[in-house]
């Protein structure tokens, strides 16, 4: 195992977060089994107090889990030089197959934990906290995921040996081999570009529609559109956005752009995409929540903020993507 301060911080933080979540989940289980909003008994009062503890613990733990994704990528970038054949985080991830799984779980956790935190905040603003049951069910589902994240991270980091020969992004994202990565890299540029800008356009139009109308349908559509945009964008990053960023017709790596060589442009790019899609998902999901009056008022109040955040994040993302395509000297489509 490599004793790197980042790895230590990740493992320490994730174990503490998991411990906090375990305790919160146990409390949540007890609250769930005895929760009775109609009652005004002493026991119910105690339970209501406990909910504050649960949400505080969970807020902290989930906030860390969300940040840990960033620290994880940061650490991967930092230690890639230890491995033969690694040029960027791809190499570090390849050094041990579990790496990709950890990354996947981190991405899933980013969305689910952020959704949980936002709905928890909504719930706490209301008087009657109607979301207690769905929230705690969600918590019980997410806790094992965080545990799995910790376990996989542990086995990933302990399994890293500096002598391992890994493969570089260049060999993973090349055309011609039959992996998902190379299929993404091999997507024809013109249709992918069209799909990507179409998806982004639909997303923005739906956002504007949601801002101006209260129709639930638009929000459901926006939910679908953000999911679509997320996956289309990831494919687009591998397929053509990376090419424009690196100004190189064969370089498809989605991680190199996080390096200092490219001015860390990957961080705002991915930040914009993730935040934009997250806030695009939220209004649609909020429509699925139980329709109590108090909750309805809160959703009305906060929804506008979500939509605006989604709008700005996606616009930033699109500007970073479109910048080199429109202004750069690199012309891919002429080949």
């Amino acid at each position: 195992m490599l004793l790197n301060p980042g790895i230590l911080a990740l493992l320490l933080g994730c174990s503490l977060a998991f411990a906090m979540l375990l305790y919160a989940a146990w409390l949540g289980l007890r609250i769930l089994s005895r929760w009775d909003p109609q009652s005004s008994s002493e026991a119910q009062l105690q339970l209501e107090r406990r909910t504050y503890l649960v949400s505080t613990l969970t807020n902290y733990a989930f906030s860390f889990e969300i940040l840990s994704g960033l620290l994880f990528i940061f650490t991967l970038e930092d230690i890639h030089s230890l491995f033969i054949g690694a040029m960027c985080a791809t190499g570090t991830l390849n050094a041990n197959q579990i790496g990709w799984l950890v990354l996947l779980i981190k991405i899933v956790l980013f969305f689910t934990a952020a959704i949980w935190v936002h709905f928890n905040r909504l719930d706490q603003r209301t008087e009657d906290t109607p979301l207690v049951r769905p929230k705690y069910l969600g918590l019980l589902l997410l806790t094992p995921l965080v545990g799995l994240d910790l376990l996989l991270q542990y086995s990933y980091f302990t399994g890293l040996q500096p002598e391992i020969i890994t493969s570089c992004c260049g060999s993973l994202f090349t055309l011609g081999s039959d992996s998902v990565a190379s299929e993404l890299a091999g997507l024809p540029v013109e249709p992918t570009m069209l799909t990507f800008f179409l998806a982004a356009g639909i997303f923005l139009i739906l956002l504007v529609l949601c801002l101006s109308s209260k129709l639930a349908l638009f929000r459901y559509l926006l939910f679908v559109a953000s999911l679509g945009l997320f996956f289309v964008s990831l494919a687009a990053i591998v397929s053509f956005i990376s090419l424009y960023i690196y100004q190189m017709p064969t370089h498809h790596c989605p991680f190199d752009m996080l390096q200092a060589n490219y001015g860390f442009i990957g961080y705002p790019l991915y930040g914009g995409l993730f935040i934009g899609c997250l806030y695009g998902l939220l209004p649609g999901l909020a429509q699925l929540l139980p329709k109590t009056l108090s909750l309805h008022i809160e959703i009305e109040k906060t929804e506008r903020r979500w939509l605006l955040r989604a709008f700005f994040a996606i616009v930033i993302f699109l500007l970073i993507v479109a910048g080199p395509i429109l202004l750069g000297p690199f012309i891919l489509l002429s080949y």
Partner: protein
Amino acid sequence: MSARLKILEHALASMARRKQKNFAIIAVYTLTVATLASILFLTQALRNEAANVLLGAPDLVVQRLLAGHHDLIPKQYAEQIAKLPGVGKVTPRVWGYYYDSLKKVNFTLLGVNDASEPPLLAGHLPTSGRQCALGRGIADTYGVEIGDSLVLVDSKNRTLLYEITGLFSHQSSLLTNDLILLPEAELRRFFALPDSQASDLAVQVYNEQEVSTLAKKIKHQLPDTRPIGKMEILHTYDTVFNWRSGIMLTIFSSALIAFCILAWDKATGISAEEKREIGILKAIGWETSDVLLLKFWEGLAVSLSSFLLGTIIAYLHIFFFGAGVLGPVIQGWSVLFPKFDLTPAIDLYQIFALAGLTIIPYIACTVIPSWKNAVTDPDSVMRS
């Protein structure tokens, strides 16, 4: 003014009311952060220094072992090694130690052949018989300058005088602090070394990938030798500083635990006055979540200010005051210890990791106590 800012204002005011308690926590927290950060900064800087400077070391050093001891190596070995593919120049090195029983220091005597001027040297390298060049550490300890003479007793118990013709600048102290350079022929006379042998052989290898294979081949052809690769040298220094920082971190981890207990204790054992304060806040209409936010602001204020202060202190301690407090731990029994003039090797990533290592435990051990305070029942407090 938004409601959040009001709560922050209130949090700061209530912290100011309990100056002593919060000052104690911040002081201990700052110290803890400063210790951890100092360890990280110092070992990182030293490792960085060693890794950068020793890159110039010989690609391969071949020693001869006799009965488990480092022994003189015949010069024919050099010719044999030079025939292997991938080997460049093979240079026999001549060096030894000279123990000073008064200062309890082993000086390193090194023979030089090449009189071309090395960097960071005032004066010139010894060229003829009775001349020498010294490291800055010796010159400072004994207060000598160029033109003075070094008095040594050789292996035949003769007292010899060597005129000092060169002094290394303090910028190279980490390498040359205790070094005494003599012309190679003179050093051989001094130690009574036979001309056909050398202390060891420095082997130039063009391709660093090939070093380990060459080491194996040399060991196979000349079984009484011990080849040491440049990577092994660098790795030795990596482990040395890892080991030292490991010891310090072990000691430190108990300090971190102690601090966590302190933070937990301080957060749990709140005064009756503090309890009444929360009771009153709730009586006048504050929600539990508002009180939790208040506690969050308090925790944030404490950890942010301590973290920033601690990191700044650590930085100043290591890079402006030459690691005055931690230095002795690195120093051990050394008498002729080079003055640290360390170069920062810190990046934002280390700062983030440091924040993760110190802020997360603090938050984790204050969250339950602060909830307990926040759910205080107003009327139970008022009545007591």
